[in-house]
């Protein structure tokens, strides 16, 4: 009778196509998010996240079609993030078939957006995505927790303490925190456990750990540090790890999985 740790593959989608290389041999079209979503579902993924990185209006419209097709074929929760800046954006995505939406930069610019979305659709639809980065010790830009919020893929500082921002967003009505370590992201050296611990201590909503997964043994410590769910992109896309292997590693470490 315990909630299972969720294992969540994330797909970067640009104008309706999956970016980053994929070498699942059974796929007829490795760039089709719907087919990839079906594959992850069959492998036991607990949820899916689409990150829309389309730069154009047309690109985002195409992603909307992809969301609809996925919702019609894959019966696990689907979160869509990327470029969401208004309540209307959220409404369109939910109607298209998304179950949750992830907001990031727009909420930093206008925190009230979090409250507006939560009020209209409930906090369960709202994932606050935080791109956190360690602040160099002794830096003038120091933050109380030692972690700051970044935008533009980690290139710009938002001038916010990452842990405080997560706590504030939870108060405003976020239903979940997607905590992405910009330091660990892409290293495949493991999750930033200190970051997870600090945010876990300050919020009572679920925390999804993201960034740094490279091997199956990286996942159980993230859960020990307080993550309710673990998210990864490239290790799943490239077939380095399979969802089932990650779940087995979690189960072996004593964590409940589906």
């Amino acid at each position, binding site marked *: 009778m315990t909630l299972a740790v969720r294992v969540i593959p994330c797909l970067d989608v640009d104008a309706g196509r999956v970016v980053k290389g994929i070498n699942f041999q059974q796929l007829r079209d490795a760039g089709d998010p719907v087919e990839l979503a079906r594959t992850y579902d069959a492998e036991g993924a607990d949820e899916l996240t689409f990150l829309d990185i389309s730069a154009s209006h047309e690109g985002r419209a195409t992603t909307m079609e992809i969301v609809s097709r996925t919702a019609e074929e894959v019966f696990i929760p689907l979160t869509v993030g990327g470029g969401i800046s208004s309540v209307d954006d959220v409404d369109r995505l939910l109607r298209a078939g998304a179950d949750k939406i992830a907001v990031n930069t727009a909420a930093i610019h206008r925190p009230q957006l979090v409250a507006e979305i939560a009020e209209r659709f409930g906090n369960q639809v709202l994932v606050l995505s935080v791109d956190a980065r360690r602040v160099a010790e002794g830096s003038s830009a120091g933050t109380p927790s030692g972690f700051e919020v970044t935008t533009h893929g980690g290139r710009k500082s938002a001038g916010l303490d990452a842990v405080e921002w997560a706590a504030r967003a939870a108060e405003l009505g976020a239903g979940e925190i997607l905590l992405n370590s910009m330091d660990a992201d892409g290293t495949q050296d493991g999750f930033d456990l200190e970051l997870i611990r600090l945010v876990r201590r300050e919020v009572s909503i679920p925390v999804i750990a993201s960034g740094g997964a490279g091997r199956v043994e990286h996942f159980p410590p993230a859960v020990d540090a307080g993550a*309710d769910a673990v998210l990864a992109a490239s290790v799943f896309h490239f077939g380095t790890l399979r969802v089932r292997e990650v779940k087995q590693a979690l189960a072996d470490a004593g964590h409940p999985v589906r």
Partner: protein
Amino acid sequence: MTKKVVVLDYGSGNLRSAVRAVERAGAEVTLTADRQAAQDADGLLVPGVGAFAACMAGLRAVRGHEMIGRRLAGGRPVLGICVGMQILFERGVEHGVETEGCDEWPGVVERLQAPVVPHMGWNTVEVPAGSRLFAGIEDERFYFVHSYGVRDWTLQTNDRTVAPLVTWAEHGGDRFVAAVENGPLTATQFHPEKSGDAGAALLRNWVESL
């Protein structure tokens, strides 16, 4: 004969998954708030996400509470999902504000008392003996996402009435209603339409019972 199901359209949110999931369970599905269609269907599915008060307001706006009541008076099946289950109870309490529900069952929908809320993810359930809804899937996990729940089941029955079958779930030390099977009225706190194969089996069980 293919069973006809109406998914009640009374607000925003993801209804596409519910429609598709019930279609996959073998029914012919219409998404509408039309009273006659809702009355004529073999089964009425009442979805619901978000706040109790907002859902109840949306439901009243299409007179959904009357559709539910009339169907039940005629012994016609209704399935409530998530907040669509919660609004079947007497009332909901959110941030200290009480909202009247459909009052098909006594009980209060109140905030969960657990270290991490919302209760979000795949959880096991305690299924009572004789459940038709959970036949063959008693040990599966289902997808929950909610911050409120019904923590006391208070409906009194006697030896002349059939006691409803109540399925429970637990999260962070709190225990709450996960599903109810009560004659024509069925409800789940979790989302069968988001619960993969287990959810599909549950919806098939429901459609087959229509």
